[in-house]
């Protein structure tokens, strides 16, 4: 049975170990680093959405005083991309541009004005090609192909069929299908992209400080694109002002800055504007979904068929993984006997999409949960009862080979049903007010890494020296989610010492061991386990030293509260520092490591693409949203949210609560108001005024509950906490709007214009039905 507590009043955690730096202004982000002597880098971007590059002439720009270097596509002949099977992008376009804003050339100059003047002097001749901004146009039979060997501009098709679909639909009492559309959205982290690169022509070494979530990917890609030996490169992550997936993939400006630094033989600083940061995004794609579901009259799911089309943008990026996730995450949350999934990732002449918080699963969850809600209404069933009728029993394996080892969804449902007063209030809300609910889940790290090198999934080094301080070296990128604090807690708790004895050094490829970084909510599960393993290895050395000093057997030594003693009641006790001194005799400073590997049985099904969605532990969430809708203006207000997340065990409850609130709120942005817009490929959303995120004024109280199901493989039983609750918000809100107005929306965000149109259509339909009824009588 899981423990359940309210985040605000339950077990409290600790503030972030780097929190004081953030509130005092001491924390240095990439743009705050010492830029003394650095040249300013700027990028020239394509003004057209699709064209051949006929000619680039940089001679006038080169002749300008103060210009140190100019690079174009000719300076990098290697493609890059996060997936080894789909590297089809150049840091600077070669021969062809495929979206408006694609980098074509770049300048390093003594100051920003000179750099801008140089860009203005670069002459480019384009031969324009037809451009496609919608999936259906790009897929038209006569459409020009964006990439060779990709007929129909389809980057990847997925067809997965599990269980007996026909039998499933035949067994249903009710079968319904609906189509939904989710707009493209953006990570919109508040820190604009920035990079500081320094190349030393004498040593041939390149040092890059950057906003990356995965310094290891950037390290590899720089070596590839600059044709440098990996040993010549160092990548450092300073403080990072938010990621949410935007900075997992290597981004063009990072490679371009390094190319400029090498060409100039020095230091180049590049900060993108907010507009450029919006263009360089890799976020959640515009998605069309057709979903068909079978249900018995008592609410059991019998079959599900789902077709997903994602408008992926001009290059592959993470696309193959996103379209696979969208299908794979139909499983692992409910018991559904048959599932068919058809996915299409489409190329279009827009900035490429990629991974964003809740990667791949969010929009299908919206389609699924809203249809469940509508069918429950039709069958006269309570939405909670329908979810409860389809719960899984852990441990189990899904049809697509995913392992569910711990499952606290039932407790999540109980917590939010009770806290929201659902039983007393649902169906009895005053006019214009509504309640809606939904569930969601997410992986705790992808069990199969992108690069199959045979290495462990995570490695941590611990250094212990004469001062008795333990330094944890990790490549896991703290981007504000508190992962360094999690590492410190895991090490301190395992060693039985206070947090003040632990330092964490993160994400410097010359110092910290390779790590796959901050994505797919992997750090707590994988790096947490590696940290515990490393601390246990250190503890074994210290225990042996204590045993030698106390003349006792190793098994007799008990280590707790910063002391080592013989047996539970032992009189003789050594302080941590005394044991450290003993352990260092004849040895000197100690280094140990700990590693974590996901066993192969967790790495997904054997079918093509079966690795995507595989994980050692799923988080689960349920939430209830209360809303007010003004049917005259179409304005939707979120009054309150109750959310419960099964994160296995909260290693730091304070940080877990922050992640639950932040992820629910990000789901709210997508549901309520966020969307990108392009006019003939020109980004019309690329500022915080045009890309509307909820402000503090529109943001409701979020009452978070933590459910601890104690995963058998998680560190201290923990699973992820940062993404699982996001996907439940959009369907819960849209169901709440339906509850308030009687109108079923099929599009998000639920902006006033969309809602008014839906309300208008629904009234016309009702009026027509009334006329027909009158005529018949």
């Amino acid at each position: 049975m899981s423990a359940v507590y309210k985040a605000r009043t339950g077990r409290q955690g600790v503030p972030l170990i780097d929190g004081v730096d953030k509130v005092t202004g001491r924390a240095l982000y990439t743009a705050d680093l010492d830029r003394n002597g650095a040249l300013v880098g700027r990028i020239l971007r394509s003004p057209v959405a699709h064209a051949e590059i006929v000619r680039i002439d940089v001679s006038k720009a080169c002749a300008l005083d103060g210009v140190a270097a100019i690079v174009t596509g000719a300076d990098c002949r290697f493609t890059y991309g996060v997936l080894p099977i789909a590297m089809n992008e150049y840091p600077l376009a070669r021969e062809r541009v495929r979206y408006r804003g694609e980098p074509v050339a770049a300048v390093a100059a003594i100051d920003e004005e000179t750099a801008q003047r140089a860009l203005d002097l670069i002459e480019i001749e384009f031969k324009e090609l037809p451009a496609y901004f919608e999936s259906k146009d790009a897929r038209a039979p006569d459409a020009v192909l964006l990439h060779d060997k990709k007929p129909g501009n389809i980057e990847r098709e997925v067809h997965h069929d599990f269980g007996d679909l026909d039998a499933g639909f035949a067994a249903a009492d009710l079968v319904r299908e609906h189509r939904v559309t989710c707009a493209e959205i953006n990570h919109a982290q508040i820190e604009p992209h920035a990079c500081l690169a320094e190349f030393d022509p004498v040593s041939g070494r390149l040092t890059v400080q950057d906003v990356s979530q995965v310094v290891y990917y950037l390290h590899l890609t720089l070596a590839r694109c600059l044709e440098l030996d990996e040993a010549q490169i160092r990548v450092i992550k300073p403080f990072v002002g938010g990621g949410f997936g935007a900075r997992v993939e290597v981004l063009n400006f990072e490679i371009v800055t390094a190319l400029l630094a090498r060409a100039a033989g020095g230091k180049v600083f590049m900060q993108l504007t907010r507009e450029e940061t919006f263009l360089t995004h890799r976020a959640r794609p515009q998605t069309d979904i057709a979903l068909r579901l079978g249900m018995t009259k008592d609410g059991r799911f019998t079959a599900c068929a789902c077709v997903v089309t994602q408008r992926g943008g001009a290059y592959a990026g993470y696309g193959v993984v996103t379209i696979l996730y969208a299908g794979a995450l139909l499983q692992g949350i409910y018991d559904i006997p048959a599932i068919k999934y058809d996915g299409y990732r489409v190329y279009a002449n827009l900035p490429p999409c990629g991974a964003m918080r809740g990667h791949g699963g969010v929009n299908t969850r919206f389609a699924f949960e809203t249809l469940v809600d509508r069918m429950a209404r039709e069958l006269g069933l309570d939405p909670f009862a329908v979810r409860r009728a389809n719960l899984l029993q852990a441990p189990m394996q899904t049809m697509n080979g995913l392992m569910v080892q711990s499952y606290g969804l039932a407790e999540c449902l109980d917590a939010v049903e009770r806290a929201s007063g659902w039983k007393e209030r649902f169906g009895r809300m005053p006019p214009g007010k509504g309640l809606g609910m939904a569930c969601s889940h997410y992986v705790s790290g992808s069990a199969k890494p992108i690069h199959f090198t045979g290495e462990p999934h995570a490695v941590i080094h611990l250094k212990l020296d004469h001062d008795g301080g333990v330094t944890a070296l990790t490549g896991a990128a703290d981007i504000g989610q508190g992962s360094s604090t999690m590492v410190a807690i895991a090490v301190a708790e395992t060693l039985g010492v206070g947090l003040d004895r632990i330092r964490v050094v993160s994400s410097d490829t010359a110092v910290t061991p390779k790590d796959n970084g901050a994505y797919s909510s992997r750090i707590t599960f994988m790096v947490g386990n590696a940290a515990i393993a490393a601390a246990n290895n250190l503890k074994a050395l210290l225990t042996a030293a204590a045993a030698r000093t106390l003349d006792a057997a190793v098994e007799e030594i008990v280590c707790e509260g910063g002391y080592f003693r013989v047996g539970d009641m032992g009189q003789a006790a050594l302080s941590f520092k005394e044991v450290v001194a003993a352990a260092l005799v004849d040895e000197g400073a100690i280094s140990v490591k700990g590693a974590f590997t996901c066993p192969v049985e967790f790495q997904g099904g054997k079918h093509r693409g079966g690795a995507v969605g595989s994980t050692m532990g799923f988080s689960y969430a349920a939430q209830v949203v209360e809303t007010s809708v003004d049917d005259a203006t179409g304005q939707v207000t979120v009054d309150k949210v109750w959310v419960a997340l099964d994160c296995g065990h909260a290693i730091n409850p304070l940080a877990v609560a922050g992640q639950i609130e932040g992820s629910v709120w990000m789901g709210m942005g997508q549901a309520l108001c966020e969307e990108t817009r392009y006019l003939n490929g020109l980004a019309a959303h690329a500022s915080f005024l045009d890309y509307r995120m909820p402000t503090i004024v529109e943001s409701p109280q979020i009452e978070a509950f933590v459910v601890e199901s104690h995963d058998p493989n998680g560190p201290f039983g923990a699973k992820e906490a940062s993404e699982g609750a996001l996907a439940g918000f959009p369907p819960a809100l849209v169901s709440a709007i339906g509850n308030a107005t009687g109108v079923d929306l099929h599009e998000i965000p639920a902006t006033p214009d969309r809602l008014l149109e839906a309300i208008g259509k629904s009234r016309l339909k009702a009026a027509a039905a009334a006329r027909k009824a009158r005529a018949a009588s």
Partner: protein
Amino acid sequence: MHGSAKPRKRLVRIEVNGRWCEDAVSDGDLLVDYLRDVAHLTSVKVGCDGGECGACTVLLDGVPVSACLTLVVRCEGRNVETVEGLVKQGRPNRLQQAFHEKLGAQCGFCTPGMIMASEALLRRNPHPSDDEIRAALAGNLCRCTGYVKIIESVRHAAEASA
């Protein structure tokens, strides 16, 4: 900008975090660039292309302003405060402490601006309601917290100074 002659500079005197500074600036220089590049106060963040995000919020004679929309020459003889200036003898003030303890800061990028806007609020209204906190911070965007713990932090700081 495209002329060959550099724009003429003039001396301005500004009290920055309690210390008078005298520097040569151009008429068009923005306070955000002056504070970051000349005074080396990098807590003043640039998050947008002008006036959208609030990350550069500082106090000008106690009033919160966007440093990216303020000319340095307008600050002649006036008092500017940034989040570095709230630290006394190495100790965070009540708001900074509350943002730390209550996790009002996750990635921390919006935090200095958020704290300065909150500081201005608490100086003129020591015990604000949640709606008053929301109104005071309406111009400061945060992408991490959902604002829940930001409101808690400000409320906690107000209670701590009661």
